[in-house]
């Protein structure tokens, strides 16, 4: 029997082939699609076709479920496999006792910084707390450089900040959603970044890993990126970066509230509702995300950000990296980042839209129109309204 799999992982067929050779019951055939091709998957399913397995980032899984495109994996006993996955990964595809996807890859957030310029040239250290981030960003901006540069239109960045601070924006409750974007944690994040934006001490023209960012990073004008673990591969393409960069934890809140890190970017395998072989697809997906041989292959061929298996980060990640000045950053930094996650966080079935609203709001905040503190409150009202419009039961937290 042959399973079809649409995925944006490069060379995924090589990973599938390892599975195909191990047994003769199931054969998996991967087809590459672009990461922006959700429309293609959803249209194929709506038309009654499509592959058995689709590739969806974890935050968009509820959106796919809402579109009626997914199989609830708990029906096929996936809950029993839960222990094989890192809690921080599996919790992201779990909505009220239902698992909608098999986590494959995610990005615990850390600080990637140009050690040569930040430490050797400017005599600064990577900020351990957000309070220190404020000071360091100020000191760097006085030298005409920027500590980081943000794309204000990227709404998932503030979402990572509040997730770390301990907010839970969307809480499923019986048959509806409680939306709470104005709790203490969220307001603290909003006030902090309002101040950073008002002081204009970080770049706000472009996001990390865009063409202008690479140009500036290569010249030592932008010194860091606070982003998902997959950033390491992108940092390696900074011109003349070899041996100069290093990795530090995500800054935390000084008083110890909140979590060590957050998630930025992820992917998971979903079984689409037209699949004739959901049980076999689940067997393959579980193997793919938990078998050490498969994880090593996914790191080698597909460049996954971080393994979602419990206790196995991949052979290649247990060694020091020559590029990152000999630092063994995966074990030293990324493991604690992956473990220190906000397990209460749940993705709502309209994250694309939420991120747009937050991104547009942050753009307005950068332009000095509406501060983030007010924007979060306005966004909460707007999002509840939209959830009701698309037929969901939702209310604002009191």
């Amino acid at each position, binding site marked *: 029997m042959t399973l079809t799999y649409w995925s944006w992982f490069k060379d995924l067929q090589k990973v599938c082939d390892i599975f195909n050779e191990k047994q003769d019951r199931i054969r998996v055939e991967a087809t590459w699609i672009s990461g922006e091709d*959700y*429309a293609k998957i*959803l249209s194929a399913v709506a038309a009654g076709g499509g592959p058995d397995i689709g590739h969806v980032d974890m935050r968009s899984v*509820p*959106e796919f*479920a*809402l*579109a*009626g495109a997914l199989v*609830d994996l708990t029906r096929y006993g996936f809950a029993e496999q839960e222990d094989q996955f890192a809690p921080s990964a599996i919790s992201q595809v779990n*909505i*009220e006792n*239902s698992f*909608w996807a098999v986590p494959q890859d995610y990005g615990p957030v850390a600080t990637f910084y140009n050690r040569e310029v930040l430490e050797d040239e400017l005599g600064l250290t990577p900020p351990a707390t957000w309070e220190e981030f404020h000071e360091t960003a100020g000191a760097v901006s006085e030298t005409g450089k920027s500590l980081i540069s943000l*794309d*204000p*239109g990227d709404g998932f960045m503030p979402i990572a900040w509040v997730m770390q601070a301990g907010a839970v924006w969307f809480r*499923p409750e019986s*048959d*509806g*959603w409680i939306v709470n974007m104005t709790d203490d944690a969220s307001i603290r994040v909003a006030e902090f970044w309002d101040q950073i934006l008002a002081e204009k001490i970080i770049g*706000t*023209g*472009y*996001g990390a890993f*865009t*063409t*202008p960012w690479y*140009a*500036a990073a290569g*010249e030592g*004008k932008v010194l860091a990126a606070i982003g998902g673990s997959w950033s390491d591969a992108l940092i390696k393409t900074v011109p003349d970066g070899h041996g100069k960069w290093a990795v530090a934890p995500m800054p935390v809140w000084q008083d110890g509230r909140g979590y060590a890190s957050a998630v930025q970017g992820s992917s998971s395998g979903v079984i689409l509702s037209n699949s004739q072989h959901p049980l076999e697809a689940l067997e393959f997906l579980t193997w793919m995300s938990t078998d050490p041989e498969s994880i090593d292959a996914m790191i080698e061929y597909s460049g996954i950000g971080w393994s979602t298996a419990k206790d196995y980060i991949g052979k290649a990640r247990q060694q020091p990296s020559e590029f990152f000045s000999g630092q063994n950053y995966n074990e030293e930094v990324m493991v604690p980042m992956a473990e220190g996650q906000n397990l209460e966080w749940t993705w709502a*079935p*309209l994250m*694309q*839209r939420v991120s*747009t609203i937050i*991104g*547009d709001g942050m*753009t307005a905040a*950068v*332009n000095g129109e509406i501060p983030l503190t007010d924007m979060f409150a306005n966004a909460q009202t707007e999002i509840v309204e939209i959830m009701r*419009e*698309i*037929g*969901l*039961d939702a209310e604002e937290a009191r």
Partner: protein
Amino acid sequence: MRSKSAPWILLAPFLVVFISTMIVPILMAIGYSFSSIERSGLLGEGGVTRSFAGVENYVAALSNANFIESIGRMILFGIVQVTVMIVAATLLALLLESASAKFPGFFRATYFLPYGIPGVIATILWSYLYIPGLSPIVDVLGLVGINIDFLGPNMVLWSIANIVTWTYTGYNMLIIIAQLKAIPGELYEAAKIDGAGAFKVATSIQLPLIRPALMLTIIFSIIGTLQLFAEPQLLQSMSAGITSEYTPNMSAYAFAFQYNDIGMAAAQAVIIAVSAFALSAIALGISSWTEKRR
């Protein structure tokens, strides 16, 4: 009987494709635009039903501030960009067709060349000229003390206008030249005998006679403006100024494929189509009205 069925048999292959890829999707989109979805449960697992929503989606689309703003943005864009482009295309056409033009064939081909480059590629090419740190233009302007951020929130619309103008001026110029070529030589001769100079020839003979071509290019450009999609979509990742509902088409795309709200997307698409139709009709109306007054 046989002679009557022959055209239909010959037309059949075209009609099948035309109906299935044009007419049916349009009818379906119109249908979707009047429907909405009801869900129960956290993720709709309790059941989903599609129901008739009347004009609800249209009301929602037209009361969506972002969508209205995107239409306003396109109107502003159109007024400036279409005017600049048509004036430039007309001037180029008149210059190339004047008696004193050197190597008109070479320049015609050169001006037309950008049209041969797909919009996506053109945008990527231009983005390298806009990005600070990479762009020689930004560097040179910086040297003489002009600091300009082509991708900034206030500038990016005009940076897009520049790409569109660059791409389509030569194309519109060619349409105008085709019409200029159709002007009979006797008219020029008569003008010369009457003592008209090059400027008089252009304003009294050429411009009035190329009016139909100008009308055509203006209508194409208006439709093109409303359809603006690829350029801003691509520049989005490089500019903080472009939101996901920056143009009406981007808005419809976002609602359909990111927000999973087909009814709203269909309503927006219908509004865009009707607006393009209405604007073209207005352009034609103005044209025939001025024609009659002459």
